[in-house]
């Protein structure tokens, strides 16, 4: 707790005045020669207990009243609750969620969750922690920035709104890393977020190390400033799977369109919304009716003009409680050839993959190239969207290794298939390419290779758009190759060994393409992947789709620090809603044209991550368990709540003083059953006989 008039705290010893007066009063006693000591002794015996306690309470109340008066005069400040701030910290780390969902605002004040956070934290720091080192870590960059003045917080580019998602575990980890690196002493960490479940990622393995790091520092306190409220009138729009197609009627755009309502209650009236479509600057408005909480239009068609073979577009909703989720951008161009390269010496495998990859699902051009392993140098890296690597894994520092890294880093897809012979690793400590290594082939004996589980919510094996799972329960494996890697398992055996995994490695940037390991082959003696071809076909085309975006001249990406090339020289903005020009374009949704050289220019549409439209929040109980063992306090705030985190609380002290005086007065009231003075009957009846 801090005080606006701390000098007055010097008067705090005055609180002892009642005790001193009491002691003086006791010493100013008079002395009386007394005969009836027996009554005094009896009275004292009877008096032990309540009366003494009452006397102590009276004295305590008097002391408390004076202390409260002095404290009130010192104009104490407190954050939210008394003792919230507890004392001045050496360092204050502000962790700011800059995700698009934090831009929800009240229409009355125009204050968003993010700006409310900044205002309150600025106020808190200026009032209670002047002199503390202020460090800002924002969710978009995860870079610690030392702030000289709290008042400047709102004007910093690092606090401006973005269209990104937030990674709360990464944010906390960044704070923990900062603490460890800088040995910050007594530190208060303020984390402001809207508690969105995708941002908090309760299933993330990072929480364990965060807990360990934060609990190891005794002088760290964590404050969670939560804005869990969701504006029910808000609408969000998104457009995915945007493809340019040529039909009999000419060029057209096909996309999956989704409009979600903030109100998730069951009985909702239909809502008609005017959606503005803009194609290359030409606007049209179409009314769309939302039934229930969400409108999903799969394969929504927009006809294109003859001259609109290449360009950009956007979908806009009318202004509402969150301006950042009212727009969805897309770009389109001549569809790229969906080229698959299979590097394999096994003709059966290559043939099965080729058949699946060449089977068209739309009007795009499909092409498959099969190369034997000794012709790896002939791989057309620039045109390849999906590469099946059915060969030994090259060394990371080899030329092939570097090319594979570049292939994935550029957004293309790579699938490792197990080679027929696995060479044992000679040196265990030798770094592997992508941290991946084949172990050994295993063959089925009874149920050993039965499928146990596959990931249905995301990835190659996720459910179809209508929610049906892929028929993987019918898949049979006869041979499987085990492997070791860090990653996200997509298909597992009953022995919990993964068969299909998405490899996650820190050797690649976050914008890299997908990298998979398939532990079996589409051969009849290995599995029924090729014979029961549905799942295999879907897997292959999903992998191809993901890679095609990288070779396409019209790419769709989610906003993020590396969403656009780091050099901004060749980036030109076609359209964006963001008013903050100093903000990195990677963090703003919009349509951009990238022309690093005159021959190779392409279009990019950046949109906020889909997870930003998911409205579920983590419960306080879930946060309790995520941060178990960490000293933290949750403060739930509301949009439009003008209460300062640090407010003058002298009224509380005056109230307490009044209470103390009332209690003291009540204690001083003589009990109702006061014993009257004993009646003196002068003579007994025996005297009159």
């Amino acid at each position, binding site marked *: 707790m801090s005080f606006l008039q701390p000098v007055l705290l010097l008067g705090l010893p005055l609180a002892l005045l009642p005790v001193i007066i009491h002691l003086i*009063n*006791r010493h*100013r*006693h*008079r*002395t*009386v*020669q*007394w*005969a*009836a*000591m*027996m*009554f*005094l*002794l*009896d*009275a*004292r015996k*009877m*008096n032990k207990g309540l*009366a*003494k306690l009452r*006397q102590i309470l009276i004295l305590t109340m008097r002391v408390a009243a004076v202390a409260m008066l002095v404290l009130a005069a010192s104009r104490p400040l407190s954050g939210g609750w008394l003792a919230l701030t507890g004392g001045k910290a050496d360092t204050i780390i502000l962790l700011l969620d800059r995700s698009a969902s934090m831009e929800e605002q009240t229409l009355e004040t125009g204050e968003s969750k993010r700006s409310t956070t900044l205002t309150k934290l600025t106020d808190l720091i200026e009032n209670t922690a002047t002199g503390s080192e202020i460090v800002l870590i924002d969710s978009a960059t995860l870079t610690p920035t030392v702030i000289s003045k709290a008042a400047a917080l709102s004007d910093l580019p690092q606090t401006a709104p973005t269209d990104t998602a937030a990674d709360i575990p990464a944010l906390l980890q960044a704070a923990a890393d900062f603490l460890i690196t800088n040995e910050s002493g007594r530190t208060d960490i303020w984390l402001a977020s809207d508690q969105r479940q995708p941002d908090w990622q309760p299933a993330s393995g990072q929480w364990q190390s965060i807990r360990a790091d934060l609990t190891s520092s005794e002088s760290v306190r964590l404050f969670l400033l939560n804005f869990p409220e969701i504006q029910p009138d808000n609408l969000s729009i998104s457009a995915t799977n945007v493809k340019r197609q040529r039909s009999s009627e000419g060029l057209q755009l096909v996309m999956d369109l989704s409009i979600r309502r903030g109100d998730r209650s069951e009985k909702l009236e239909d809502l008609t919304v005017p959606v503005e479509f803009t194609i290359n600057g030409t606007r049209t408005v179409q009314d769309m009716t939302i039934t229930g909480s969400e409108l999903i239009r799969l394969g929504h068609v927009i006809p294109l003009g003859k001259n609109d073979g290449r360009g950009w577009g956007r979908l806009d909703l009318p202004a509402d409680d969150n301006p950042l989720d009212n727009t969805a951008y897309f770009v389109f161009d001549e569809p790229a050839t969906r080229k698959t390269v299979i590097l394999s010496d096994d003709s059966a495998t290559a043939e099965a993959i080729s058949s699946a990859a060449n089977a068209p699902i739309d009007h795009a051009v499909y092409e498959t190239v099969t190369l034997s392993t000794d012709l790896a140098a002939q791989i057309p890296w620039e045109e390849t969207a999906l590469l099946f690597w059915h060969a030994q894994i090259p060394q990371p520092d080899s030329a092939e290794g570097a090319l594979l890294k570049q292939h994935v880093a550029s957004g293309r897809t790579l699938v490792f298939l197990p080679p027929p012979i696995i060479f044992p690793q000679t040196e265990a400590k030798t770094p592997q390419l992508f941290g991946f290594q084949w172990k050994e082939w295993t063959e089925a004996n009874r149920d050993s290779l039965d499928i146990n589980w596959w990931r249905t919510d995301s990835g190659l094996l996720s459910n179809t758009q209508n929610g049906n799972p892929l028929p993987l329960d019918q898949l049979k494996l006869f041979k499987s190759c085990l492997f070791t890697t860090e990653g996200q398992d997509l298909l597992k055996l009953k022995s919990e060994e993964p068969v299909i995994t998405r490899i996650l490695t820190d050797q690649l940037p976050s914008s890299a393409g997908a990298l998979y390991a398939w532990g079996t082959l589409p051969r009849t003696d290995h599995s029924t992947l090729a014979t029961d071809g549905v799942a295999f076909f879907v897997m292959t085309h999903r992998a191809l789709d993901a890679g095609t975006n990288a070779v396409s001249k019209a790419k769709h990406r989610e906003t993020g620090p590396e969403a656009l090339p780091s050099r901004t020289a060749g980036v030109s903005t076609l359209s964006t809603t963001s008013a903050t020009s100093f903000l990195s374009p990677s963090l703003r949704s919009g349509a951009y044209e990238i022309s690093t050289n005159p021959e190779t220019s392409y279009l990019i549409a950046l949109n906020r991550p889909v997870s930003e439209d998911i409205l579920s929040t983590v419960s306080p109980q879930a946060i309790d368990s995520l941060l178990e063992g960490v000293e933290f306090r949750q403060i739930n705030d509301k949009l439009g709540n003008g209460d300062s985190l640090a407010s003058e609380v002298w009224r509380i002290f005056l109230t307490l003083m009044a209470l103390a005086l009332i209690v003291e007065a009540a204690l001083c009231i003589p*009990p109702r059953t*006061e*014993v*009257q*003075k*004993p*009646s*003196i*009957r*002068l*003579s*007994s*009846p*025996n*005297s*009159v*006989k």
Partner: protein
Amino acid sequence: MPEPVQRDFLDPAVLGRLMGLPLNSRHPMVGSVSGRHRSPIKGSALEFAQYRKYVPGDDTRRLDWRAWGRTDRYYIKEFEADTNLRLCFIVDTSGSMAFGEEGQTRLDYAKKIAGTLSYIAAQQGDAVGLYSSADGIEHEIPAKRGPRHLGIIFDQLARLEGKGESSLVQAIHHAAEKISQRAMVIIISDLLFQPEPLKEALQHLRFRKHDVGIFHLLDRQEVDFDFDRPTRFVDLEGGPSMLVDPSLIEQRYREAVGNYFSQIDDIMNHSVIDYHRTLLDEPYDQVLARFLIGRNPKTARSGK
């Protein structure tokens, strides 16, 4: 020559007023000479007592011939015998009796009561004795008649000083044993000790057929306990002193006094004691007048 002592506890005006009120005993007394008190021994005074059957050896002069003439039987006519009484004072001279301002202490009050009653008794021809107690029996003067003996009593009263712990109970037992014949025993004390032992001592006196009266002397301050600021109470009987905030224990003190009074009342009623609770701010002549009037059979019966 013993040094003359001041008898300021005797007030001629009070003596003059009270002389008109005789000191009566509530029970028959056994005296050595004729007096104004009833005796258990039947004699030939003027007051008729009873008829009794004649037995050989009786004085035939006391035969009631009229009764013989009416009933043809011999009856002896008996009359009350009047005698003097022995008035014995047991005065508590413990330290607590020194309570009060100089010249107006509880003991001074006790002396006034004892002195005045002694004088009245002596004037009636009664014998007066004095027992004083503090740390045991301090002085003991057996009851005797005569002006000279009264002078000795007065001198002893004048010399009494309040000091030491109370030993009134032992003194009562001692006096009960020492006083051989029926007597009037007047105890003057503050009775500031636990009352239980007092009951036994008083019953001892009653067992010896003594007519017992008690003047229980208390100061109003001791009863009301009206103190307004912390006070150190120093025990007059030499016990440890106590520093007390009166506001804290005022109620409990009064409760304790109330309990004590009810115990004393029980004991006095049970032992049939002529008990007078006396406040020191009350004029002692009024106290004595009430005492004497209460003992007068005529006024007591008529309720005057």
